[in-house]
C-alpha cells in the first residue's frame, strides 16, 4: 500500500473551508499530548483555553476587545496578501497609529472638546498610513523588498514609542514610569456594552469588514488587486498598474492598523506606554490566512486568535503555564493550516505498489509494414 499526492483538476472549495477547521483540530490534539507530557490535566487546560473565555458577559467583552485590533490588522493584511504584497509590519503601523492618535489626545489634554475623539481617530489612521507609505515608496521607486522594510519599521516604531514615553511625553507625576499621562474622558472611547471593557472599536472593525468585502468582490479596484495576486503577467497585460496596487494595499493596511493602534490606547489602555500590543500585528498575519484572505473569513480568524490570547492568559494564571503557551498555540495553528492547505490543490491517492501485468507475448500489433 502506497500513497501518492496527485494534483486536483480544480482547487477544492470544500477543502479551503475545511482546512482551518482541521488546523484547529490538529492544534488541539497536539496540545493535548503536550499538556499530558507536562503533567497537566489536558481537560482542565482546554477548559481554561476554550470555554472559560466564553463563560460570562465580561469575558465575551474581553474576547471582542481583543478581536478588534486583530480584525482590523487582518483585514488590511488580507487585502495586500491577495495582491501578493507582503506587508508583515502591521505591528509597526499599529504602533505608529497609537503614537499619532495618542499625541493628539495628549495635546487636547483634559479638554471636553467634541473634536478630540474624531481627530484622534483620524490621526491614528494617518499615522499608520504614513508608516506604510515608507515601504510603498521604497518599493515603487527603488524596488526594495517590502517584507524586510515593513518588518524593520516595526522596531523603529516601537523604539520611537519607547523614546517618547521615557522622554518628552512621560507623565511628570508618574513616578518615572515610562508612560504618558492618562487620557481624559473626552479622549477615551466609550464602552459599548455595560459591564465590559469592549469599545466602539469593534463596531468600526465589523463595518470595515463589510466595506472590505464590497471592495474586494464588487469593485474594479478589488478585481485589479486580485488579478495582480493570481497572475501578475495578466495584470501587466491588462495594463493594471502594479504601483497603484502596491500603494493601495499598503496604505489601506496602514490605515486599518493605525486605527487598531489608536483604538487600543484610547480604549482599554487609556494612555501611551511602552508596551501597547502583545503582537497583534503579527498574529493578524495568521488571522488573515485562517480567514482565507476573505474579509468575512477574517472575522472568524480574528475571533479564534483572540480566544487563543485569552486562553493563554487564563492558562498562565490558572495553571502557571509559561506565557510562551500562546505563541506555541499560534504557531501550531499556522503550521497545521499550511499543511492542510496542501490538500486544496492536491489529493492523497492510494495506489497499489507497482501494478504488474503478467508478461505475455505480444502478437496483437498492427504493424506499420
Amino acid at each position, binding site marked *: 500500500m502506497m500513497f501518492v499526492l496527485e494534483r486536483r483538476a*480544480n482547487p477544492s472549495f470544500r477543502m479551503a473551508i475545511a482546512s482551518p477547521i482541521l488546523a484547529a483540530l490538529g492544534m488541539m490534539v497536539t496540545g493535548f499530548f503536550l499538556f499530558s507530557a507536562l503533567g497537566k490535566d489536558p481537560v482542565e487546560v482546554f477548559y481554561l483555553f476554550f470555554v472559560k473565555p466564553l463563560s460570562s458577559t465580561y469575558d465575551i467583552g474581553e474576547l471582542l476587545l481583543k478581536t478588534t485590533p486583530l480584525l482590523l490588522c487582518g483585514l488590511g493584511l488580507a487585502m495586500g496578501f491577495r495582491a501578493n504584497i507582503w506587508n508583515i509590519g502591521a505591528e509597526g503601523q499599529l504602533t505608529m497609529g497609537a503614537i499619532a492618535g495618542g499625541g493628539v489626545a495628549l495635546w487636547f489634554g483634559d479638554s471636553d472638546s467634541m473634536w478630540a475623539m474624531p481627530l484622534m481617530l483620524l490621526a491614528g489612521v494617518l499615522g499608520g498610513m504614513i508608516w506604510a507609505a515608507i515601504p510603498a515608496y521604497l518599493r515603487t521607486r527603488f524596488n526594495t523588498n517590502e517584507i524586510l522594510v515593513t518588518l524593520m519599521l516595526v522596531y523603529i516604531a516601537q523604539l520611537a514609542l519607547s523614546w517618547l514615553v521615557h522622554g518628552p511625553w512621560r507623565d511628570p507625576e508618574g513616578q518615572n514610569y515610562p508612560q504618558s499621562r492618562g487620557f481624559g474622558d473626552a479622549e477615551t472611547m466609550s464602552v459599548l456594552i455595560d459591564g465590559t471593557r469592549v469599545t466602539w472599536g469593534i463596531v468600526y472593525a465589523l463595518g470595515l469588514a463589510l466595506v472590505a468585502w464590497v471592495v474586494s468582490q464588487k469593485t*474594479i479596484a478589488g*478585481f485589479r488587486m486580485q488579478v495582480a495576486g493570481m497572475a501578475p503577467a495578466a495584470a*501587466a*497585460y*491588462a*495594463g493594471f498598474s502594479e504601483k497603484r496596487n502596491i500603494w493601495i494595499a499598503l496604505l489601506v493596511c496602514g490605515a486599518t492598523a493605525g486605527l487598531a493602534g489608536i483604538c487600543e490606547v484610547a480604549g482599554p489602555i487609556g494612555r501611551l506606554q511602552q508596551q501597547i500590543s502583545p503582537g497583534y500585528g503579527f498574529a493578524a498575519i495568521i488571522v488573515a490566512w485562517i480567514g482565507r484572505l476573505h474579509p468575512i473569513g477574517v472575522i472568524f480568524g480574528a475571533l479564534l486568535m483572540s480566544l487563543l490570547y485569552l486562553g493563554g492568559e487564563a492558562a498562565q494564571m490558572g495553571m502557571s503555564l509559561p506565557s510562551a503557551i500562546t505563541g506555541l498555540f499560534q504557531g501550531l495553528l499556522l503550521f497545521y493550516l499550511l499543511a492542510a492547505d496542501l490538500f486544496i490543490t492536491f489529493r492523497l491517492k492510494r495506489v497499489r505498489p507497482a*501494478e504488474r501485468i503478467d508478461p505475455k507475448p*505480444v502478437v496483437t500489433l498492427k504493424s506499420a*509494414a
Partner: protein
Amino acid sequence: MNPVGNATDSKPRLVLTGITKRYPSVVANDDISLSVRPGEIHAVLGENGAGKSTLMKIIYGITKPDAGTILWNGQYETITTPSQARRLGIGMVFQHFSLFETLTVWENIALALDERVSSAKLAAQITEVSEKYGLPIDPYRLVHSMSVGERQRVEIVRCLLQEPKLLIMDEPTSVLTPQAVLVLFETLRRLASEGCSILYISHKLDEIRALCDSATVLRGGRVSGTAIPKNETNESLARLMIGGELAVCSLMPRQPEEVRLELDHLSLPTADPFGTTLKEISLTVRSGEILGIAGVSGNGQKELMAALSGERLSTGPMIKLLGQPVGDLNPAKRRELGLTFVPEERLGRGAVPPMSLAYNALLTGSRKGMVQNGMIYPTVMRSFAKKVIERFKVKCGDEQSAASSLSGGNLQKYIVGRETMLEPKMMIVGQPTWGVDVGAAQLIRQALIDLRDQGVALLVISEELDELFIISDRLMVLAEGRLSPSVRPAETSIGQIGTWMSGKFNEPAGRGAAGADPLQEVA
C-alpha cells in the same frame, strides 16, 4: 529500398502494448500499442493534446503508466526514471531545452552524465561526435551565446554521447529555420542507418512524409491508425489525425487603407540579460491588412510584443498608433485608443487561470460597460462572455467555468474572441495557433481574416510559416532583433523566408538554391 521492409527481419527494439495513463480530468493515453525496429524512423503523429508527449514521457521513465507493458529488446522493463531509460539506451531531446545558459556546452553535458569524465576528454568526445553527425559545436562556448538551433544540437549531442539505441525527438523542428531542418534530417537519417531507432513526434505532415519510415497516428489519446507516410498524402494523414477534412481559409485581395500602426526605428535594449535587443525596427500596418512577422522564437518576438502592448515602454514617437505617439503610454492607455492584443502565453497572461471566463472578460473589457463608477456590473460582464463563447464556439461549461478548465485551443478561441469583440482598430496577435488543435486553428485564422476584411489592421507574430503564408498580406522576418524588408507571400518562397530567418537579409531575394522549397526538395 524500403527500410521498413529490411527491418522486418530483425526483432523489434521497442514494443508498447496497451499503454494507458489517466489524469484527473482526462485519459491521456488509452490502450496505446506501438512497435519500433532497429534503424526505423517512426513518426508519432497527432494534434496537440492527442497524447504524444505523455506517451514519450512514459517511455523515458518520467511518467508511470497506469497499465500496459514495455518490451525493450525482447525483455519486459518497468522504466521508472530517466536515468534508467538512459542506461537502457533511450535518449530524448525535449521540445523545451534544459540547458543552463551561464554554463558552457561541455559543462552542461557533464551535468547530465551519470559518471565523471575529465573536461578535456569530454570536450574531445563532443567534438568528435558532433562532427561525425554533421552538428558542429564548440564545447567551450557558453550556452547563452548560442542560437536556438545550436542549443538543440547540444541537446542532441548530449544524447548521442550515450550511444542511444532509441532516440526520441519531441517536435524538434519548431525552433529551426527550414534550412536547419534539412541538416537535422541528414543527421537523423545517418543515425538510423547505423541502427539507432528514432521516435519522431510531430504534427507537421510534410516533414513526416519526407523523413519517416512508418507512423503511428494518435487522436484523443488513442491510436487512430498506422501508416507508411511516403505512401500517404497530407490529406489522408490529416484525416487520420483530426478525423475530418482540413478546412481551408482564403484571403481575398483587398486594398489596404490608412496607416494604423507605425514603428519608426524602434530600438530597445533588453531588460533580461539573455533577451534580445530590438534594433532599428520600422514597419507600418494599414487598415484592412494583415502583416505577418515570421521568425524563430527568441529572436526578439517577446520583446517586440512587450514593446507593442506597452508592457515595456519606449520613447513616444518610436511607436505611433493611429498617428498618435504612444511609445510611453501604458497598456491601458493604448487599449483606450483601440489596440487589442492576444499574447502568446494564454494561461497566466492572456487569462487568469483560476478566474471564471466572465471575470476574464473583465480583464480587458472593462470599458464595455462592465464597470461604472468603479463598481463591477456582473450582468454586463456575463452577457459579454456569453456572446464570445457563442460566437467563437468555445467549448466550456458556461461563462462561470474557470479559464484553467479549458483546453488550449478553446481558451485561445475565447481570448481571440474577447479581443475581437472589443472592436479594435488595431490588433496584435502572438502565436495565434500555438498548441491549438487543427479545427480551432482554422477558426482562429478565419476570425483574423474576417477582422481584416472589416478594416481592422492586424499584426501577427508566428513561428508557423505555413500559417503566415495563408493569412498575411505582407510578410516580414524578425531575426536577431532586426526586421527584414517586407514582401508579399506570392512573391517569395519558404526558402527565401528561411534564409532571412537566419538573419541574412541581404541574400538575393532570388530563386536560386535557397529559393526552392526545401521540404519539397527532399520529399
